[in-house]
């Protein structure tokens, strides 16, 4: 066997009573892409943090090109040739692309007193040119799209001449087209001899990209497998430790409209959109990131002010840009960025569930604590909150359980229309299936549901009908029997149906 580029040897890490990593050993060769799989809490992040020098393992060691990594913090890991691309991109938003690229390792002049901005921007431009020539090194990071920010991270790995590049769910906010670009980039990185560690929940990507994978469960290594000799189901089973039922789509759609969106627009991001969602129907909205899907949901929920159009629920029009009025009309928004727009982190599950319904749960301005907890317990028990403790702060729960609490929030508020924006983002495989069956159950109870998703399998699983958005407009409406990846991609990507031979 050839020498390994990166090797984990008996790595263990314990946090108080929790054994986060238990004697994990595997290795990967230069130029290979190695997947790291496991449910949330399986130990993937801890392992990556050991690799990047954030945590020091209690036991075991990590070797790069045969020499043990000195574990003196993130900078020494960087010096050893390890580059991390985080799931939540870590930049200083108000600094320029070039400044961010050289953060912590600046090019200096005058004996290290000043940073040499010009040299930095030149070096940045050289690297960025091969990735995305539209990124200007002098531009503020905050002005870039998420996919572009990711490229900046990759540029950093290139600049630092990394031997190992670890990517933690790099695609969680990318569109299929952007993913394709990333695939090319990763292949290019690997061709230069870099070892890539790739963490993702998306099985498609793992099979597409990885040569081999290591599967973790509860901090222990379950198996290291070659991707060409294993099936998807086997992997899921190894991850979860049980067989997951592959559920079929079920439809509960009626022809009784509950919500009508009439010419709703917020120029220039959302151009006039009209459609209706019926009782028991799950309407999917597909489209590229930036096509206006999230913005459309925010308009429907009254969070932002529309420039034109209106929303009607059960025939009554809802005052625009008034969240309270939208909630009273029965609309509830489950935001994409749960941490930013969804949860009140330090408050309990019960408080988070009750928040929009407080007037209902109070008398004379004083909250009826028992009723708040009672209602939270009822809804959260139905949804199988784990662990079942509605008094715990919501930050202490996993992404899937937080999402359940936000669903519970709108059920408690009596919502009839639920707007899900990327409902399973940051949620692990097991909990995903749960969220899907929850959406189905809500539909069966007669709710009207909109699901915005960048994951096509997700839409195929839950949606009765799909709208495709492109540049702020609805470019196609596809009933279930016409929902194909190709049809959606054609409607989603600008210029494909007008240009005679578009590049998909």
């Amino acid at each position, binding site marked *: 066997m050839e020498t390994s580029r990166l090797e984990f040897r008996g790595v263990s890490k314990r946090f108080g009573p929790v054994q986060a990593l238990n004697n994990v050993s595997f290795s990967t060769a230069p130029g290979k892409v190695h997947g790291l799989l496991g449910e949330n809490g399986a130990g993937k992040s801890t392992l990556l943090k050991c690799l990047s020098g954030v945590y020091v393992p209690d036991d075991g060691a990590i070797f790069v090109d045969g020499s043990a990594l000195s574990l003196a913090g993130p900078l020494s890991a960087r010096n050893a040739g390890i580059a991390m691309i985080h799931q939540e991109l870590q930049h200083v938003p108000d600094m320029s692309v070039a400044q961010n690229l050289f953060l912590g390792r600046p090019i200096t002049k005058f004996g290290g007193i000043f940073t040499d901005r010009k040299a930095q921007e030149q070096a940045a431009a050289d690297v960025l040119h091969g990735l995305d020539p539209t990124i200007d090194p002098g531009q503020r990071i905050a002005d870039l799209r998420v996919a572009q920010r990711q490229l900046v991270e990759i540029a950093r790995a290139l600049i630092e001449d990394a031997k190992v590049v670890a990517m933690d769910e790099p695609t969680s906010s990318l569109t299929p087209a952007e993913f394709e670009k990333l695939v090319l980039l990763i292949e290019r990185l690997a061709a230069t001899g870099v070892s890539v560690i790739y963490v993702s929940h998306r099985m498609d990507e793992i099979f597409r990209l990885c040569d081999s994978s290591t599967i973790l469960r509860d901090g222990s290594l379950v198996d290291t497998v070659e991707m060409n000799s294993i099936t998807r189901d086997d992997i899921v089973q190894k991850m979860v430790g049980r067989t997951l039922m592959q559920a079929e789509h079920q439809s509960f759609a009626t022809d009784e409209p509950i919500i009508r969106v009439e010419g709703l627009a917020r120029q220039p991001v959302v151009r006039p959109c009209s459609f209706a969602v019926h009782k028991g129907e799950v309407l999917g909205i597909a489209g590229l990131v930036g096509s206006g899907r999230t913005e459309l949901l925010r308009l429907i929920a009254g969070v932002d002010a529309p420039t034109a159009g209106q929303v009607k629920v059960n025939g009554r029009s809802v005052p625009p840009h008034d969240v*309270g009025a939208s909630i009273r009309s029965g609309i509830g928004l489950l935001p994409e960025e749960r941490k930013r*727009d969804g949860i009140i982190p*330090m408050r309990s599950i019960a408080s988070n569930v009750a928040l*929009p319904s*407080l007037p209902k749960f109070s008398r004379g*301005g004083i909250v009826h*604590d*028992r009723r708040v907890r009672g209602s939270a317990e009822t809804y959260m028990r139905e949804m199988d909150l784990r662990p079942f403790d509605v*008094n715990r*702060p919501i930050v202490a729960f996993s992404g899937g359980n937080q999402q359940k609490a936000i669903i519970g929030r709108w059920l408690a508020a009596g919502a009839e229309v639920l707007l899900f924006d990327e409902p399973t983002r940051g949620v692990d495989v097991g909990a995903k299936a749960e969220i899907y069956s929850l959406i189905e159950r809500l539909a069966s109870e007669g709710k009207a549901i909109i699901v915005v998703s960048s994951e096509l399998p997700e839409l195929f699983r839950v949606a009765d009908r799909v709208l495709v958005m492109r540049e702020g407009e609805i470019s196609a409406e596809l009933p279930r029997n016409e929902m194909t990846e190709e049809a959606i991609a054609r409607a989603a990507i600008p210029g494909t149906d007008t240009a005679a031979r578009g590049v998909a």
Partner: protein
Amino acid sequence: MKSKLVFVAGFRDAGVLIGLIIIFGTFAILSPTFLTGPNLLNILQQSSINACIALGMTLVIVSAGIDLSVGPTAALSAVVSASLLVAGVPIPLAILAALGIGVGAGLFNGVLIAYAGLQPFIVTLGGLSLYRALALIYTGGNPIFGLPSEFRAIFNGSLLGVPSSVVLVGTLAVLAWILLNRSVFGEYILAVGGNREAAHVAGVPVKRTILGVYMISGAMASTAALILTGRLGAAEPTMGTLWELDAIAAAAIGGASLMGGRGSIVGTIMGAIILGGLRNGLTLMNVQAFYQLLATGIIIIIAMLIDRLAKRNG
């Protein structure tokens, strides 16, 4: 209910209580008069003004804001109500005028912060100069004397041997506790301070909540002004210098996070008592005022360090 209490505020409050006991225990050993009934009442009375301001400040801080204008707001309330009293206006009306000025100043701050979207620190820093200037201009820089003794009796009297200011602030503390921990408005303050965007999406009236918090803070400043005016029998336009910093210190020692979303009324009251007790004890021991300032600074920093360490291990 009990488990929720313990989780949300309990451990932190217990920590402040231990700090309070240690400091009071030390003084009890060093000074025989410290731990006597009259002196304890004295400490409570001396702490009452800071505690009053700090109650409002806690709500502001929990909402992820700050109110630097409380001292000058108090001064303006004091001089206006004092001049009304001297001119023979009935006492209840003068009190209402004082409270009205506090609420008005809070409204002004709150509108700029909630509706114009300015940063609380800057708005209330502006208010700090503005309200002080108004108080100085209004009085020409001179104190106002000769307040009716009935007025003084209200705020400087006693009820069953307890100074009326202690009774008043104690009552306000109970109300503030109910407001923050049991009322819809309190839940909104915690939500807005914890995650403003999420609160907005969940239908919380974010702007009205912020407005309300600053109005309460202004009213608390006016109340503190009435207490001090009653005690001194005079109103000075320079009243309340550095009150905002004492109030922030009490709230922070008590566990309020300047990032918002977290704070405890019980903790704040204990924080004010710690600061008051410290000054009282050091005075009893004839320690120079300079060292009292030093001790205050050390206590604040130690409290924050303990907080930090507790969180890292927790």
